[in-house]
């Protein structure tokens, strides 16, 4: 029996498109916009004879989501017909930057203008003077290097997130240590029989480590799969400073101090090794550097880790024993690992835990990808040629990051924008990137000012975001996930689950999808990369489908489980190495508990612990003024980062930006639930609304991120009130790790002061404005 069978059976077995009650129903997989990680949830759109989207439902035919759908897709109609949406290309003059003086133009004019500007800046300042800034989650997110390198011909792509502290540190660390792309918790998503498939083993233990995948499916993992497995008997361990709902269903909740994950990981390794609880066979055959690791983690006995993390030593021991004894056990490790300067070491500990307990690449353990199941990486890089490749910013200083992800180093981009050294950025593009709105940019006002040094910019989005209002001369309208054809791989394709067709069912204005916009820019600016495709679909089949199938075939199948590349223990069968030999794709052919790659980059090859740069331990002198540990960015169901504020049904779930504070602290400060407070630290300040709650312990506060107020004035200097509640004003610039990865977005300090003003959102005004949907005639 499938637990989710109760989700509806009425439309099981229906084709990709059919008629029902005078409406045309199209089955497809959702990605973006609205922003989301690529699960590729199954959707059905119902469209009337006038071409209007009447409603949307979850598709019960989808093997993973089975009809389930979250609030962000359920409100798709309010998204696609939203009155704030921009449906046509627009331009404005350079002197009108920051003003609502946009003028509608044609796509031809827009693309031709980009081509002219690209040619001009290449000729006069070199291609490296063009900067591409990208965002996350949306389909354009992983396309960022390709947008820059393949389509524009500049090496300099970058997400303006300090230390690229999201996913990339984990992916890079995994690649260096294990040679595989990214080990995700296995929930049988690619197996036809799902949890009952004979290939699958239900995990005895699921560990959520610095990750809450339920609200927004981080990294493309369908978070509620964990609930499915818990209902079948899997136990849960939560490693998180905060209480979230799922941690209340865990048998073990380790509430560590933010940023101390590496200490906890080392102590767990210490217990598992010293008590001989590890998988000797796997360690002997497939690991490198076990002795050195064992020696290193002796330095972190549970008692010492207890002092650092605040978790009881006995509880750390118990957690280590439970994890080692569970067969199989899986760890969903998340963003919190990346958001610290030595997150790479915390990640190294987690990989070591997975390896020495024999949970890597086994059913119900950590699922990894087949080396031959190619990802869309590196498109256009070779065609840049060695001279331009050498001009990607940060290559010499941070080779472990820059050469791996083919992105300019984020923090160096800000310095370069400000100083004009070592190169001058003259032109920029912003794709799916609202970095100023408390999403990416640390010290966003500095970024805002630095962007003004750019002569000409274009932006690709659904909305006029504060970032685009502040920077761009040209706006390209993006279509939503129900308005274009494309392809979505769950987990960004890093592990084999599903490949889904994003099936177009409506047209709204002139929006185009990210893949098509890149194709159109590319064929004008870089025919060397795009000239060989006769049309967009040929490009899509090359770029997303590796020529293995046609889009037409996938469209009709709607969603394809990747059974052909799904297998386990691939280190035995040669499917982890391009040469087909058994072992892992690392210099030693083994999982490197002692990392030869880290050694080669000149850093400690073994995990170690480092205090957050600002914390009660490293800056005790500051704690009198800033007595709270500040963590940020806990996820909500209703928003994806800065997205969703214009959708009334989403906005009413979370109208205002919140800061969670413990009742004891609130009482001491004289803050009542719902009162606005000023939150400050040495780097900046903003106002948030207090939520008095036991989700945080005394001394810890959690602030929401990504807020802007699209109902407010969009012109400079207001930019939709983007500076009012922008928690990233408190984030320091360039507090990154040795290899350039990781910044302390989740482990800072602050003070909290009650204020008298209220900035409560007027939900009636939101409804009055945003319920006026603009449905095409």
């Amino acid at each position, binding site marked *: 029996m499938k637990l989710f069978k109760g989700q509806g059976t009425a439309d099981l077995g229906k084709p990709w498109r059919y008629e029902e009650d005078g409406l045309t129903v199209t089955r497809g997989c959702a990605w973006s916009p609205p922003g989301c990680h690529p699960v590729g949830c199954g959707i059905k759109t119902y469209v009337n004879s006038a071409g209007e989207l009447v409603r949307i439902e979850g598709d019960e035919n989808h093997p993973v989501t089975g009809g389930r759908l979250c*609030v962000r897709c359920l409100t798709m109609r309010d998204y696609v017909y939203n009155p704030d949406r921009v449906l046509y290309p627009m331009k404005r003059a350079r002197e009108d930057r920051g003003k609502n003086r946009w003028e509608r133009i044609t796509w031809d004019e827009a693309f031709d203008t980009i081509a002219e500007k690209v040619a001009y800046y290449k000729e006069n300042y070199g291609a490296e003077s063009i900067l591409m800034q990208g965002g996350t989650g949306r389909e354009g997110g992983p396309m960022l290097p390709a947008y820059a390198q393949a389509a524009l011909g500049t090496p300099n792509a970058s997400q303006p997130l300090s230390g690229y502290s999201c996913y990339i540190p984990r992916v890079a660390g995994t690649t260096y240590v294990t040679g595989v792309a990214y080990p995700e918790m296995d929930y049988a998503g690619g197996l036809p029989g799902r949890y009952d498939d004979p290939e699958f083993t239900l995990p005895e233990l699921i560990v959520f480590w610095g990750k809450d995948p339920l609200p927004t499916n981080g990294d493309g993992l369908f978070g509620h799969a964990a609930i499915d497995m818990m209902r079948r008997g899997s136990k849960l361990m939560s490693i998180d400073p905060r209480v979230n709902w799922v941690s209340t269903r865990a048998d073990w909740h380790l509430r560590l101090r933010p940023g101390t994950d590496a200490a906890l990981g080392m102590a767990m390794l210490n217990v598992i090794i010293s008590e001989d609880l590890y998988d000797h066979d796997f360690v002997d055959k497939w690991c490198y550097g076990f002795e050195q690791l064992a020696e290193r983690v002796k330095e972190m006995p549970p008692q010492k880790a207890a002092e650092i993390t605040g978790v009881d030593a006995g509880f750390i021991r118990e957690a280590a024993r439970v994890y080692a004894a569970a067969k199989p056990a899986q760890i969903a490790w998340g963003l919190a690992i990346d958001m610290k300067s030595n997150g790479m070491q915390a990640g190294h500990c987690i990989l070591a835990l997975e390896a020495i307990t024999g949970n890597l690449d086994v059913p119900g353990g950590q699922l990894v990808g087949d080396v031959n199941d190619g990802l869309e990486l590196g498109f256009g890089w070779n065609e840049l040629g060695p001279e331009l490749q050498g001009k990607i910013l940060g290559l010499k200083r941070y080779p472990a990051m820059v050469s791996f992800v083919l992105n300019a180093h984020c923090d160096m981009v800000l310095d370069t924008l400000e100083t004009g050294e070592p190169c001058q950025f003259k032109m920029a593009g912003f794709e799916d990137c609202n970095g100023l709105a408390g999403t990416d940019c640390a010290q966003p006002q500095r970024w805002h000012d630095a962007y003004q040094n750019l002569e000409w910019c274009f932006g690709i989005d659904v909305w006029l975001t504060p970032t685009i209002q502040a920077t761009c001369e040209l706006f390209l309208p993006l279509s939503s996930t129900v308005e274009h054809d494309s392809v979505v791989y769950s987990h960004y394709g890093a592990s084999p689950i599903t490949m889904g067709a994003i099936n177009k069912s409506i047209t709204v204005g002139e929006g185009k999808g990210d893949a098509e916009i890149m194709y159109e820019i590319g064929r004008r600016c870089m025919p060397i990369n795009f000239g060989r495709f006769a049309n967009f679909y040929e490009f899509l089949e090359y770029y997303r489908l590796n020529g293995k199938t046609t889009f037409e075939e996938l469209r009709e199948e709607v969603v394809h489980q990747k059974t052909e590349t799904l297998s386990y223990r691939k280190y035995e069968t040669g499917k982890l190495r391009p040469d087909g030999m058994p072992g892992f794709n690392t210099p030693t052919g083994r999982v490197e508990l002692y990392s030869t790659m880290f050694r080669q980059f000149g850093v400690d090859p073994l995990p170690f612990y480092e205090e957050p740069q600002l914390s009660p331990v490293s800056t005790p002198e500051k704690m009198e003024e800033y007595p709270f540990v500040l963590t940020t960015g806990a996820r909500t169901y209703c928003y994806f980062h800065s997205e969703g504020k214009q959708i009334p049904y989403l906005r009413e779930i979370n109208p205002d930006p919140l800061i969670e504070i413990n009742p004891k602290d609130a009482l001491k400060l004289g803050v009542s639930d719902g009162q606005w407070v000023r939150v400050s630290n040495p780097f900046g300040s903003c106002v948030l609304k207090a939520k008095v709650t036991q989700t945080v312990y005394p001394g810890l506060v959690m602030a929401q991120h990504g807020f802007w107020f699209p109902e407010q004035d969009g012109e400079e200097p207001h930019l939709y009130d983007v500076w009012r509640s922008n928690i990233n004003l408190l984030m320091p610039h360039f507090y990154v790790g040795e290899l350039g990865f990781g910044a302390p977005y989740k482990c800072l300090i602050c003070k909290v002061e009650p204020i008298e003003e209220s900035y409560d959102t007027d939900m009636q005004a939101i409804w009055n404005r945003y319920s006026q949907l603009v449905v095409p005639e």
Partner: protein
Amino acid sequence: MRNGLLIDYEFCTGCQSCEVACQKEHGFEAGTWGIRVLDEGPWEVDAKTMNWNKIPTPTTLCDLCAERTEKGKLPSCVHHCLAAVMKYGPIDELVKEMDKKPNQVMFVPGPYICK
């Protein structure tokens, strides 16, 4: 036999898909609901236990999606529930389901008899 909603609140994650699916199904304005998730917690029971239950609770506007169920579809809240904790059916069948595990609640929405 009346129909009802059986909710396994031990596993309700509070995603609020039921709320929004219902609003969209019935064309309700924001601020109007046919079902709401009651947020009971978190509060500390003891050092090791936090009480936190999310309980979808039908409002006076719930009609159990009469139009949908007539066509053989499930109520929209049941269909879209991310944790798949909601069941719809005749109450005698739901009662049998209730006996299988604790921490479930059954609602039998209908016109209020006091009005």
